[in-house]
């Protein structure tokens, strides 16, 4: 069965510093992986997705993620945090019969 584990429930960075949100996955076959973002009191927005093409995936708003099979990881990064990046981020894997399986989320705080 597919699953994802987000290793940090809260991450706090200063504006202008790099962001790293960690996600490990478990899958019996080559997974399809996603990162979603949810701003306060808003719906979910797709940041990026990996579907077995290039291992480095670029998303919106300067985010990118690298698929590392040897480490079963799909960490989300951004070189320089903006205040507007403060939100909750979900790592997601595509499960059987096309269902999305969500991690428990990482709340990113950006300090001025």
């Amino acid at each position, binding site marked *: 069965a597919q699953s994802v584990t987000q290793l940090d*429930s809260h991450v706090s960075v200063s504006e202008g510093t790099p962001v790293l949100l960690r996600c490990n996955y478990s899958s019996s076959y080559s997974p*399809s992986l*996603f990162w979603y973002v949810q701003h306060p009191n*808003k*719906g*979910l927005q*797709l940041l990026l*997705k990996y*579907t077995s093409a290039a291992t480095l995936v670029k998303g919106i708003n300067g985010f990118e993620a690298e698929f590392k099979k040897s480490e079963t990881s799909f960490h989300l990064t951004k070189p320089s945090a903006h205040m507007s990046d403060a939100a909750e981020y*979900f790592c997601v894997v*595509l499960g059987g*019969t*096309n*269902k*999305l*399986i*969500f*991690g*428990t*989320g990482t709340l990113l705080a950006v300090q001025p």
Partner: protein
Amino acid sequence: IAGITQAPTSQILAAGRRMTLRCTQDMRHNAMYWYRQDLGLGLRLIHYSNTAGTTGKGEVPDGYSVSRANTDDFPLTLASAVPSQTSVYFCASSAGQGPYGYTFGSGTRLTVV
């Protein structure tokens, strides 16, 4: 309508009452889903439908029922609400098998008192 429309946006409901959350999409997507979001637990799948006329149970189906009479509508019913069903509910749809993009609704915030 563009995408997925959920109604109501929020609701306070007395325990024991029946409630239907509405979800309508205009993209002709085959598959539709209901998730609930709870702090520290992420989103968990309640029920899903791969195509009109079929439904299936997700991770947390107890206390909920769904129907899929047509492609566009996927209502979620709480037959007798309990406080543990206080949550934010998201409806989603996708075009079908494979890693096609999902579309999420804006959510319904339900409080059961």
